[in-house]
């Protein structure tokens, strides 16, 4: 059995070596991919401008998303979704327990900060390592089954982890209250005063340090933590592109198209799916570690099944199997959660104040269910619309708009497109 697996692995490395010769261009990316990568890089770097389009104090400032917390969440959940997409988008295995890896990564990171150093790098490395090990265990067991059984097994593992963190392992996880950095923590490598509460830093740069730039009425915030998280996101994104293009990625796609046929040809697909599962778990761990680095707190509900469901939504909303899709989906959901949920009736009344009283009240009454606590409803409707009219997710929407402008249907071999199509046909 073991001999067989090593054999197949060796087989896999051979075409990879030859592919390395083939791949050309900057960073080993082909033109289209390089373009995509550059666009994503620009978007991330310029996010503080792009997300704050409305001047401070204007009524529309409510929709500004360019504050550190939300920008950090965009990239962190982007990483989470990219990782999830490596498993779900490529192999078709729907894990319903990915939040567990996020949680394990978070707990590993906060313990590193409590015990070793307040520098975020060791914490992030440990979060990836621990999530990887945990994913190996979970994947080894869960991947014995596929389809719905696999989903249920992963869900069970995640719920188990949640229950353990919530109560059984309270001494390690802090239970319901979770873990924070406290004045009583004395990390080995950091010199803290007796009552000083540690702050996460990157070689001395405080994660919360921000540089604010005012241009006219506009205020843009450049946050150190955000840019560190953004660098990790770009690295993750780059890795994902390389993975999608590699022979290994091709094997994963083969698993998705017809695993049975693969098995009949004598290929053992388990090592591939397990590798994809572990990589995907490590991505989740990285996201968890970054969450702690940005905001030094962990709670068990980070592992709750709704959190696992959320990343599935992100991926499908954006476009499963595409490179940029999951990032867009993550951004969309986090934006709804943080911006729409904060609109309340008082704000609505301000917006419609120019209308006659009757109409104003009527409009507020109509919109009321969709804002504030109703953001779930708005998101649900949006999700339905996307799934029904744009099965390829937001990416497909973008392509349709682009094709309208291009007038003629270009027969490009963009990965985005082919992956989205593949997604559509295989479902």
């Amino acid at each position: 059995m073991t001999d067989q697996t090593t054999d197949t692995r060796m087989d896999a490395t051979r075409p990879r070596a030859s592919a390395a010769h083939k791949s050309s261009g900057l960073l080993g990316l082909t033109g289209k991919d390089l373009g995509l990568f550059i666009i994503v890089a620009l978007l991330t770097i310029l996010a503080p401008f792009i997300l704050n389009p409305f001047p401070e104090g204007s009524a529309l400032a409510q929709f500004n998303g360019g504050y550190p917390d939300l920008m950090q969440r965009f990239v962190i959940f982007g990483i989470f979704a990219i990782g999830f997409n490596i498993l779900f988008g490529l192999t078709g295995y729907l894990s319903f327990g990915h939040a567990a890896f996020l949680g394990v990564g978070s707990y590993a990171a906060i313990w590193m900060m409590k015990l070793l150093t307040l520098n975020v790098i060791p914490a992030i490395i440990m979060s990836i390592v621990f999530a990887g090990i945990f994913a190996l265990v979970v994947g080894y067991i869960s991947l014995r089954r596929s389809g719905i059984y696999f989903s249920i097994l992963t869900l069970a593992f995640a719920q188990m982890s949640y229950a353990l963190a919530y109560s059984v392992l309270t001494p390690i996880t802090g239970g319901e209250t979770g873990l924070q950095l406290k004045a009583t923590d004395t990390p080995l490598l950091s010199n803290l005063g007796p009552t000083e509460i540690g702050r996460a830093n990157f070689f001395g740069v405080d994660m919360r340090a921000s540089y604010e730039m005012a241009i006219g009425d506009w205020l843009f915030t450049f946050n150190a933590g955000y840019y560190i998280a953004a660098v990790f996101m770009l690295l993750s994104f780059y890795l994902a592109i390389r993975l999608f293009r590699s022979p290994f990625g091709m094997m994963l796609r083969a698993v998705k198209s017809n695993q049975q046929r693969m098995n009949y040809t004598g290929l053992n697909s388990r090592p591939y799916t397990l590798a994809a599962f572990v990589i995907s778990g490590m991505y989740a761990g990285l996201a968890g570690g970054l969450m702690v680095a940005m905001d030094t707190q962990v709670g068990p509900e980070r592992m709750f099944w709704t959190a696992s469901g959320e990343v599935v939504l992100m991926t499908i909303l954006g476009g499963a199997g595409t490179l940029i899709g999951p990032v867009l989906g993550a951004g969309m959901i986090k934006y709804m959660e943080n911006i729409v949920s904060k609109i309340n009736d008082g704000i609505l009344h301000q917006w419609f104040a120019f209308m006659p009283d009757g109409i104003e009240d009527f409009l507020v009454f109509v919109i009321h269910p969709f804002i504030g606590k109703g953001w779930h409803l708005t998101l649900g409707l949006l999700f339905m619309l996307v799934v029904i009219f744009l099965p390829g997710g937001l990416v497909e929407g973008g392509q349709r708009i682009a094709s309208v402008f291009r007038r003629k249907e270009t027969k490009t071999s963009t990965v985005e497109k082919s992956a989205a199509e593949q997604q559509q046909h295989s479902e």
Partner: protein
Amino acid sequence: MTSSNFTRRGLLKTGAASGTVLATPTIFTGAAWAEAHTGFTNAPQGDTVTLGFNVPQSGPYADEGADELRAFELAVEHLNGEGDGGMLNTFSSKTLEGNGINGKRVEYVTGDTQTKSDAARASARSMIEKDGAVMVSGGSSSGVAVAVQALCQEAGIIFMAGLTHSNDTTGKDRKANGFRHFFNSYMSGAALAPILAAQYGTDRKAYHLTADYNWGYTTEQAVRESTEAQGWETVNAVKTPLTQTDFSSYITPVLNSGADVLVLNHYGGNMVNSLTNAVQFGLREATANGKQFEIVVPLYSELMAQGAGENIAGILGSQNWDWKLENQLGERYIGTNAFVQSFGNKYGRPPSQAAHTCYVQTLLYADAVNRAGSFNPCAVVEALEGFEFDGLGNGPTLYRAEDHQCFKDVVVVRGKENPENEFDLVEIVEVTPTDQVTYPPDHPQFGGGDATLGECNPGA
């Protein structure tokens, strides 16, 4: 590279433009969340001040969150001089004159904690980073309170806790920038024990069912230690999963355990379900050791009582405050009626204890700012520490300096046998005076000698 801007002239223009842009930044701070020229985080600019009300609008405590939000809106109205003024008229400190806080008109932003610490922190961070809130209040569970309190400490703003009953909030997780008006597990235990002993005798055997999370643990410990001090014996204590909805398998062993009292350390939906199960299993009619079997629920709330319906009849528990307090026990609890009246006029219902604590916290914050003459968190902390006040419905109250916990009378209530309406579900049995529920700040249930507030943090 063919863009027309890349001519020499274009380059010069672009260069000049970006030069002015780079010269514009007005604020440079090492620590974020800060405006250097004012000395503390989110110092109010102009003639308004923004408060952040972070309450559960979805999830298991959404009802309480909705009531908290009503109370906050009422408090803001009163602070801005609208409405009938409510408790402003009875409050012993007279700095609040209906002209906002420190002369600045009060505005507020709201957020949904979803009863998850992550979501609560995200919401609070957006209030601090985006909306410029100088104080965050609200919440309906201890996990969230502890998480948001730690965040406010880091960010350098004030946190006025809403409904949070676990000892940890002002115990091992206490923070200099955080304040709790609500009572806690220890106080529940201390208030209940003498009354339980008086009502049910001192030779009782208790069986605990405890929700398997921090609040459950601290409540069980508190009730256990106080009742054992009265001579009770604890037969068994069983932890139940938080997600449990059917407690029959936990109730069955109780009858054969030799216990004659069941203590349900449950809250919210858990409590409604476990109590209903216990009553259905006939525990209320049962006798054990020759005595009538009794059930105790350490933390009561009106909204839980509504959920449990008639099963609540005759069951003892404790509350932070009750809207009938002044009517039944007189002048000492002045403020209660003023608040109930203005709340009732606006919303057509009496306020819950969650609403009361949130309303009071907002007034206390506003008053502390007025007395300090500054929104600076450290000045506010100084004004609130050791502050003694009256007229906010709980009788004379002290904000203790050592742990930022309020000390006041605790109300012991019993479920009514024949409620007259849906809001009148509990009757007040007795009020346990402050000195019986007071404990030293380094009490072992509160983190012992290690627990420290740390330094107040003004942010910048």
